[in-house]
């Protein structure tokens, strides 16, 4: 059986591109779109896959990462899916890719203007945990009435002594729309500010798209006396020795031994290859 190029039919891709153009025109604004059934369950990246499918051209080089890694189930499957239905070249190297679909990380290697980053988003509405009514959250966005988000940060400090939200940390895009950066660690939030690469977000189950265009200001919310901070480690990566990258803590045996390694596998192997050369 043969599929249309990149699985989706051309009319669907056109609908997606129109929604994406609107999203880019209004940074951070959630654009509704007609999300399709994809050959994998909701929550596995159906939103990101649809955005990727709408953007892929025959000359694109695709990279897919899952929690920073190129070799986990989700990443391998999505990469193979597009290699099969679109016949595009795939890569694990950030610098070689033109299109990067990501789940929950931004690569450590700085992105360029000719690259696009596609995020998989489970819940596009940052206010949802505090305000369950969709009509109400839309009104709050329309009026830029975002005091509510600080209630959550207040609650964090009251309960834990510091802002304990460590992923999906709310940001204000272009000084206007409160936006969920998808569940990336807050370590990656500063990379979004004035990023040269276009960042697109797709939420398949919630049927929403949004975008952070290149060179747009992205501000992480905070209090005056509790400023925004990223995670820090006392360790360095045990494989490549990096002190700048986001580290995963891995249990290595059944006696509780642990090691800290880079979550970005491409970044880590690149550094090791460099050290050997």
């Amino acid at each position, binding site marked *: 059986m043969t599929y249309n190029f990149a699985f989706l039919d051309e009319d669907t891709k056109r609908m997606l591109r129109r929604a994406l153009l609107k999203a880019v025109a209004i940074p951070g604004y959630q654009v509704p779109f007609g999300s399709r059934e994809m050959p994998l369950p909701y929550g596995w990246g159906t939103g990101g896959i649809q955005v990727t499918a709408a953007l892929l051209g025959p000359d694109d080089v695709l990279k897919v990462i899952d929690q920073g890694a190129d070799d986990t189930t989700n990443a391998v499957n999505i990469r193979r899916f597009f290699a099969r239905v679109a016949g595009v070249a795939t890569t694990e190297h950030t610098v070689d890719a033109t299109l990067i679909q990501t789940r929950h990380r931004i690569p450590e290697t700085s992105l360029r203007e000719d690259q696009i980053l596609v995020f998989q988003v489970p819940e596009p509405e940052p206010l949802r945990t505090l305000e369950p009514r969709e009509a109400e959250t839309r009104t709050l966005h329309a*009026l830029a009435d975002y*005091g*509510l988000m600080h*209630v959550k940060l*207040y*609650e964090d*400090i009251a*309960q834990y002594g510091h802002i304990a939200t460590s992923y999906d940390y709310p940001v204000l895009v272009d000084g206007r729309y409160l936006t969920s950066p998808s569940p990336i660690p807050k370590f990656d939030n500063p990379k979004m500010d004035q990023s040269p690469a276009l960042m697109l977000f797709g939420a398949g189950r919630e049927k929403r798209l949004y975008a952070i265009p290149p060179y747009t200001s992205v501000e992480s919310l905070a*209090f005056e*006396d509790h400023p925004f901070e990223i995670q820090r480690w006392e360790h360095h990566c045990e494989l490549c020795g990096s002190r700048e990258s986001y580290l995963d803590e891995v249990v290595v045996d059944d006696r509780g031994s642990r090691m800290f390694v880079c979550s970005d596998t491409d970044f880590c192997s690149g550094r090791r290859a460099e050290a050997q050369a």
Partner: protein
Amino acid sequence: MSALLQVRGLSRHYGHRIGCEDVSFDLHPGELLCIVGESGSGKSTLLNTVAAQLAPTSGSVRYCQKNGSWLDIGMLNEADRRRLAREEWGFVTQNPRDGLRLNVSAGANVAERLMALGMRNYSQLRGIARNWLERVEIDPSRIDDPPTAFSGGMQQRLQIARTLVTQPRLVFMDEPTAGLDVSVQARILDLLRRLVNELGLAAVMVTHDLAVARLLAARTMVMQGGRVVETGLTDQILDDPQHPYTQLLVSSVLTT
């Protein structure tokens, strides 16, 4: 002294049914007006319509802002209506669970309106929240407890603190003491009377309890079937009721 709120010929219908019909009154700064009447007489409809939570069928509500200019509430857009409700007005609901955010702590509940106004200093917010808990007689050490851990009376006092923290000029209250036992009621009424005096608030309060009206309000309006049947000084109305319905209402109060 000029009025704070002018209500003229206000009606609200639900289809062919009357919610409230042709109500007019003025409210002056620092004045507490009680609306009494039996269940279904249109008290809450009137309150919600005046507070711009329901759209009126006809009639007008005008409000005099801090800067002295008059606003026609019916002509406000959503953004201005919310700003007014946040900055100059307050609304206390009958069931504190409707007015509180139950999944965040008491402190966050009190500080929410301040954060909505743009205050972004955590220790300041916390100081103010602590101070207000004290003012409504809640132990400030319970600032991080969720409202669900509070008793009904404490929840109602928390709602009052949350509403008054931004120092509104006008507060709407919908039976704030209904559903509480008598001793708790007395404490809350006492608290309200003190705060209203301290802050110089104007308030419109709906109640079916004539004792509440006598304790708090200088002026009372009696409603029946959606219409105001009698209005005047509270003592006058309770001691010398003119309208047959008011007479019935007053005579049906149990005396001890």
